[in-house]
């Protein structure tokens, strides 16, 4: 039992962590929390199943196509829901526009794909067991994402430009950085990461439209608790959340697990609205 708690917990936790990273990448480029983060994770599973099981593409090709589609959704998110409202004085409009866009995609998937969970293909011809690919694939993908982003941000010029935008977009623009294109690139990157999360966790979470709101919430919990913008915080928070949830699931039942996660989330945020690792509030007047 213990090993299946750990295996399931780390696998789902890795998916949550990657959705958290998706939130972060979009947030740092635009100061916008987008409801499309969970939708991207859902699409990763659905598109993977669509490309490989229904359209019979080879797994590698299906993988690339899924990530490309995720990136495309990311770009459309930026153009349709973020860019028009960024200029607006009313800072809350983005919550509504991204929510509307997320619902559009989710409902479209429910109607055109299926309202029932659909199977996700086995990606590698390996034997199963407690160390099955469905458990280590998401963990591997999560580790690759975190390390890849670290390298991107620290070692490449584009990555440093991303950081500059995240730190101070006015100053970055004054330096001549193409803010808008960088923002689009960030959203494309976030789209690909979100799709990767759903794809890697496909066998655990299945190809199911209702994964979108579920991932939206459980992906946001590590971000909110770990402090926004911190990918390492999201990774640690996500894995801890997955383990906690699975342990509670096995030991006391699923309801308690959800209630407990929710309660912890609310209590921590009420005590420290800026997250466990976040900084204090800014000046208001």
């Amino acid at each position, binding site marked *: 039992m213990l090993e299946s708690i750990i295996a399931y917990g780390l696998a789902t936790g890795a998916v949550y962590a990657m959705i958290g990273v998706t939130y972060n990448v979009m947030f740092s480029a635009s100061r916008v*929390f987008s409801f499309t983060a969970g939708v991207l994770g859902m699409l990763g599973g659905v598109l993977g199943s669509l490309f490989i099981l229904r359209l019979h593409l080879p797994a590698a090709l299906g993988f690339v196509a899924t990530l490309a589609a995720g990136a495309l959704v990311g770009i459309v998110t930026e153009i*349709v*829901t973020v860019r*028009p*409202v960024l200029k*607006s004085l*009313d*800072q*809350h*409009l983005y*919550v*509504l*526009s991204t*929510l*509307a*866009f997320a*619902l*559009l995609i989710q*409902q*479209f998937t429910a*109607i055109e794909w299926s309202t029932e969970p659909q199977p996700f293909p086995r990606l590698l011809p390996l034997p199963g067991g407690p160390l099955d690919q469905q458990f280590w694939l998401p963990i591997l993908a999560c580790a690759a994402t975190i390390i890849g982003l670290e390298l991107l941000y620290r070692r490449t010029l584009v990555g440093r430009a991303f950081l500059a935008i995240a730190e101070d977009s006015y100053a970055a623009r004054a330096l001549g950085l193409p803010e808008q294109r960088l923002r689009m690139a960030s959203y494309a990157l976030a789209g690909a990461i979100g799709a990767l999360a759903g794809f890697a966790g496909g066998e655990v979470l299945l190809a199911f439209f209702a994964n979108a*709101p*579920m991932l*939206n*919430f459980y992906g*946001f919990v590590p971000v*909110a608790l770990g402090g926004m913008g911190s990918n390492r915080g999201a990774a640690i928070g996500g894995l801890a959340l997955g383990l906690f949830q699975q342990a509670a699931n096995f030991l006391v*039942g*699923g*309801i308690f697990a*959800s*209630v407990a996660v*929710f309660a912890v*989330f*609310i209590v921590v*945020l*009420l005590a420290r*609205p800026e997250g466990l690792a976040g900084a204090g509030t800014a*000046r*208001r*007047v």
Partner: protein
Amino acid sequence: MDAPAPPRAPFGVTEPALVRPKSMATLEMAAPYIGLTLAAICLPLVSDDYWGGIATRACVYWVLVSGLNLVVGFAGQIAIGWVALLTLGAYTASVLTAGTATPELSPYLALILAGSAGAIFGVIVGLPALRLRTFYFAMTTLGFATIVTQVALAWGSVTGGGVGVAGPIFPGPFSTQWGFYYFCLILAALCTWMTANIAASRFGRGLIAIRDAEVAAEACGIAKPVLLMTVFLFSGAAAGVAGGLFASLQSYITPDAFTFDLSVLFFIAILIGGRGSILGPLLGTIILTVLPEFSAPLVAWSTFLYAALLLLIVLAIPGGIAELLDYKNRRPLERHREIVPRPDLLPRVLNRTIEAGPLILDGITLSFGGVRAIDALDLELRPGEVHGLIGPNGSGKTTTLNVISGYYPPQAGVARLNGIALPPGAAPLRASRRIARTFQTPRLIGGASVLQNVMIGGTIDGHGSFAESLLALPRHWRDETRLREAALSALSVVGLAQLGAVRADRLQHSELRFIEIARALMLRPAFLLLDEPAAGLSAEEIRRLGALIVAISHHGTGVLLVEHHADLIFDICDRITVLNLGRVLAVGTPAEIRSHREVVSAYLGA
């Protein structure tokens, strides 16, 4: 003092709405509601049972949406998981009447208890809104919605789990389909009336102020926690009652009946209707309920359609239906408007008898990070005096104002009014001490009328409670009449009475500055803090502003004036404090300051 003598109308507009008989204006506002009610009452004459069911559903939804509207449309809290409270109310009513856990109760009692349960959980769900920013709060409501359904599924012994439980059946005249329709219609009409009362009260204006100008709301003494919790309580109760009705309408409920799509419908009906409106969301609810009935494919695609509508509204018409209906605010305004303050009318506003002592800052120190914004600052403001606060950019002028008005708690030192220490960092408590202020950038509610904006300044002088406003009891009317009259007087004083009915975001910058002064005057302030009131004004307007400020001080109000226009400062101030790098460089009369060597070299320039 140079008050413009003849009280002429400064430009030839007929004064809108304000001078018309009040009954006419009320009738015009009530007309759409009366029309809708009549149509709803006559519905059984022209409609079959199928449409009767849809109309009942629209009524039930509106009972919930009317309450949620105060949360989303007025207070601006993004509560997207409100279906959770509908679920809770539905199960409470059904379980209590079915008697699975308790003795069987009467459906009416069960409905009341459903409302109570909704109210309690409304507050619990709402609590995080006090501390969390928009997206976080949206997420907590979303999380709550998921959990309630899971609990309903798992708690099989009480809720029947996936099998479900029968909804309550109301006895007597309400047992038939049309009887039940009228029952729901009465409750829906009641909710409309109650929320419209709130919308037109100081509580409704306070909610909009929290939504659009939170900082200014605090300066007006609006206590966000109390107000928000009251609204969550009411909204939760409405949702709980709606849940009980919903269960009865469905006649049998399972967790599947409460999809997230319903939440989306409620939420989007409000935004399509327009924030800060009652009629708009009412029409939105009717439209969204009826729309999918026109063709079968629309049923499956309804949530998709709602989402598309939401996206369209957010991107194209953020004001929603209410903005489309607001034809009055599309009439062009006079181009060349002139602001002619009437300081001679001040006695109507500042009819205060309280004699305040001085406001004294003693050794106030505040740093931001490594920067000492103000350093051991002493300052004395006397009643009836205009005190200028000048200094280069970054010398700590606005920070001083923010410490006095309680936005920043100082790290050392104390501010005393009349010898009693002001609680540090408690902005909403300043209004009751009669300390009013304006802001460097005017902080007004763009979507509300000028008159409403000014009335917000007098919020703390209302006596009626939320419940009294809800039911439009006498004290509510007395409050409203008094606040309206005071606001009209304050607007006349600053010379903008003719713009009272206009939406504030249509005015020009200089007018907004004067409206902020009118709002501050509503407090009958003992001390008035003005943060660069002359910025962006023409030379003539600055002269009139100066005369107005002097007149205000002659009524016993102490004025602290932060300004860069040296002429204005030296013309009207009784005393001047010069700041440099957070420290007092000099204090004295205008003549002393003008000849002060350090001031001249540091600031005024030789």
